[in-house]
């Protein structure tokens, strides 16, 4: 008896064969897998076609309005302007007009000897 260690390929074939032997489980898993693939592909196609945003159509019956709860505040144009000005002020503080971080590399061209 000279035990041989199975190769990766042999192991893969073994487990695949074992999996394939049980037809019910095999087809159940393959069907579920196919469903996931189809949904994913459909999602990608839908997104590529520009259908990412949900369109809201006007209905003849009134739709319920969303109530702003406690802790939620609708932003007024003046609040937005204030936020924007603070953001811009910070941007200006970090402005590096001389682009010191991107100065061209200093290298040696006198390499001959």
């Amino acid at each position, binding site marked *: *008896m000279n*035990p*041989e*260690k*199975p190769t990766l390929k*042999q192991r893969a074939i*073994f487990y695949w*064969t*074992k999996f*394939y*032997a049980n*037809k019910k489980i*095999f087809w159940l898993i*393959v069907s579920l*897998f*196919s469903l*996931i*693939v189809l949904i*994913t*592909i459909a999602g*990608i196609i839908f997104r590529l076609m520009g259908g990412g945003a949900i369109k809201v159509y006007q209905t003849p019956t009134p739709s319920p309005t969303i109530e702003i709860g406690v802790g939620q505040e609708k932003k007024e*144009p*003046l609040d*937005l*302007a*204030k936020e*924007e*000005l603070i953001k*811009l*002020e910070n*941007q*200006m503080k970090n*402005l*590096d*007009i*001389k*682009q010191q*971080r*991107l100065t*061209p*590399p200093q*290298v*040696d*061209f006198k*390499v*001959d*000897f």
Partner: protein
Amino acid sequence: MTGWRSGNAGVCKTSTRGFDSRSGLPMKKTALTLIFLFLLAFAPSARAQEFDFDKAYQDYIYTQTVYDQTYSEYDKAKNNYLKNPTLTLKEDARKKTQAMLVVRDELFRVYLSTIRMKLLEIKAPVDQGLDDEITWYLNHKNVYKLDDPLDDLFGKSKESESRLGSHTSPIAYESLFNISFGEIGNIRVSHEGVYKSLKNSIDLGVSAGILKLDPFNRWFTDIENVLKELDVINTKSKTRIAKMYDSSTLAPKSAFNGAINELSPAAAKLTELNSFLTELLNSIRAQL
């Protein structure tokens, strides 16, 4: 192990019939195709991890470190050879020179790519010349062959030096100016957006009778004067950087420094604009 072998044989005996049968083979292919399609569907998510300016900059810093290291090795090997000019030491110096020259070209390629990423990030136009330079360094680093004699390496090194002066430096400095110009332009546009929004709020408030136009109408004039001053600064700086191409005697770095000196007051003007708009906003709130 014996168990595994016997188990394997046992399963194969009963199940591989399906594989070998006429109907089994297409089923196996279908299953594998489905798995392949599934993996393919997830490929775009891997591509989504985009190469942005921060990553490019990290890449540049890393390449600079690699260059410093290869240069140091070259310098050491060169000095060893000059002290003791043996064939072995010459060969070592030749190899280190070749390695350093490849990294030097790579450093410029990565540097120019970093500038390119910055321009894209701020939505500024990328000059075709910049892309041409990136391609030039990408190709030129391959001209340094492993078995090139020292004299050939020195000759090819001069090509890089010449390219830097004639093409790379002008386009690099012009791009650096465009980055600063673009950043200032973006901040200005955002301020203009805020100004428009505030003016709109005042117009609505005046129409509704809850705000008085005075003193806002005079403040508008002051704000618009700052915007006009920014226009003048922009024009002056643009004219200055263009001189780099008009005059062959003006070095790109000098042209860049001159243009940046013209552009620098824009930062102070933007700060003034920001404080004017903040004051305008606070006054609107005080009246409401």
